[in-house]
């Protein structure tokens, strides 16, 4: 076992996450399913609880004190996430249920208004289903075509072929910043420049990036960027679409209802200002408050420190897993091109069997197609097992994973 490189106080950090401190099937939990959702620190749990305990009321509707407090916390949370993503102003932050809804919002408003027959939408075979299906729905309704950037055998986008699929018919390009199934980190700023060169818009699915690195939408220069709260230690059911204000101003509303209107008359209605135009109905107020607390938490720990620690753990994990006989890791060879996601198969043991056996030793990994069936098809597998790491994981936990994989090999004879 190597000496733990203490970039920060790991025991103290882990103590912030109550869910990590439990036994599963008689073993201390090793939680390696962070790409699916992250555990929540006390700071987030307390923020949500305190909102409900003290300040709960509906927002933008009441004159009374609790409504004032709830509205203030809700809008402060918006401003907090605006600074987290370096948006120009809080109004560019639209609350959604998560990344999936953020992508659907862009597909259902901007794309339906601006994409027509013969136009093209460009995505990649690396995408999560939530960044494929909304565009397929747009294509069905408009007669547009969905085109794909392909991957190489290390699961990297074939950018030397980008000019073959990106052209004057391309209206919008939507790509993952980081792949949920492979961990590939895409050179998204460079791609954004090339997309703008042909006059198309650039949307980035930041579900796997937001939790791990500072997102600076102005520096990236993109048009839309989506993140989820629950993958960055925040609550489930809350996420954000960021878009440039000019775009939001001209976009049609998303859902109709309360909050998003200015005046409702028998023959039609007018819309509220951005961002409220996109937020029909009572929003997930406590979720927004919790997501802002998660942003506070991550920045207090420090993204540089998080990145350095994750790099240490992931490097060790790749080294150790590479020595397991019969184990194959998918995705980029170079650690510079991958994040904390390690997708793998082991001999002829099916990933579900791997996951059941690991669970019996307290090790939680995901098994399946990871909502990325095009990725599975690219590599000719039905499923993979996926260990995904976050700021609280340790090299000791990597050892526990490898030990549990020995049990898999014992049973399946791999």
């Amino acid at each position, binding site marked *: 076992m190597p000496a733990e490189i203490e970039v920060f106080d790991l025991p103290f950090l882990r103590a912030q996450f109550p869910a990590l401190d439990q036994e599963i*099937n*008689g*073993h201390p939990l090793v939680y390696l399913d962070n790409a699916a959702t992250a555990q929540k620190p006390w700071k987030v749990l307390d923020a949500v609880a305190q909102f409900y305990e003290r300040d709960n009321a509906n927002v933008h509707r009441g004159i009374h004190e609790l409504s004032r407090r709830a509205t203030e916390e809700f809008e402060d949370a918006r401003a907090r996430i605006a600074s987290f993503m370096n948006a120009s102003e809080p109004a560019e932050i639209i609350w959604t249920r998560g990344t999936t809804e953020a992508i659907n919002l862009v597909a259902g408003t901007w794309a339906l208004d601006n994409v027509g027959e013969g136009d093209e939408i460009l995505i990649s075979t690396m995408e999560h289903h939530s960044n494929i299906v909304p565009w397929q729905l747009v294509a069905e309704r408009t007669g547009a075509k969905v085109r794909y950037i392909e991957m190489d055998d290390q699961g990297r986008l074939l950018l030397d072929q980008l000019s073959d699929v990106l052209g004057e018919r391309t209206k919008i390009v939507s790509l993952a910043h980081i792949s949920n199934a492979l961990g590939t980190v895409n050179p998204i700023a460079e791609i954004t420049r090339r997309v703008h060169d042909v006059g198309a818009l650039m949307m980035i699915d930041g579900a796997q990036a937001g939790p791990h690195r500072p997102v600076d939408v102005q520096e990236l220069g993109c048009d839309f960027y989506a993140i989820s709260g629950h993958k960055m230690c925040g609550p489930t059911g809350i996420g954000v679409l960021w878009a440039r204000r000019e775009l939001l101003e001209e976009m049609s509303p998303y859902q109709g209802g309360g909050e998003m209107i200015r005046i409702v008359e028998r023959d039609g209605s007018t819309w509220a200002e951005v961002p409220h135009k996109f937020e029909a109905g009572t929003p997930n107020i406590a979720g927004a408050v919790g997501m802002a607390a998660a942003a506070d938490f991550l920045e207090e720990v420090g993204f540089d420190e998080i990145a350095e620690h994750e790099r240490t753990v992931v490097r060790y994990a790749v080294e150790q897993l590479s020595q397991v006989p019969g184990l194959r890791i998918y995705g980029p060879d170079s650690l510079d091109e991958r994040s904390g996601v390690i997708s793998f198969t082991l001999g*002829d*043991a*099916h*990933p*579900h*069997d791997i996951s*059941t*056996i690991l669970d*019996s*030793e307290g090790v939680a990994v995901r*098994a*399946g*197609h990871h909502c990325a*069936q095009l990725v*599975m098809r690219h590599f000719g597998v*039905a*499923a993979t097992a996926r260990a995904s790491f976050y700021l609280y994981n340790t090299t000791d936990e990597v050892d526990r994973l490898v030990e549990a994989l020995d*049990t898999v090999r014992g*049973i*399946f*004879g791999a």
Partner: protein
Amino acid sequence: MNEPTLNSLYQQLILEHYRKPRNRAELPEHTVEIHMYNPVCGDEIRLQLRVDGDRIAEAKFIGQGCSISQAAVSMMTVKLEGATLAEADDLANQFVNLMHGDEAAARDRSLGDLRALQGVSKFPVRIKCALLGFDALQEALKQSRLEAPAH
């Protein structure tokens, strides 16, 4: 406490059926074919039966997935050959009982190799794996009866 449970799940007989599935082949002369797919995990089974009168003359499958789903369907096809539709129906019902932890089902020798799957009942998230082939069977029986009503 955990090892015995894991061992009871991954019985040698299951691993043996997983590695060397019985009746894993195309059956061109089938009278009914059912494709079952679990979109959550990607496991799939294409079950083909040749039904002659009220008997299953042959049962084959093509599939991919975890050891539990593939071993269960392999074991199931072994029991199906020569069975009447009513017997196949009973087999499916008794297997569902086994998955629900029924002790009488666990003692029922007529289940054959399928009894090795008893341990799956202790792993709730894996029960649907074991049932995938039987879901296909129940659908196949329904269709066979519709095509050739009992006389």
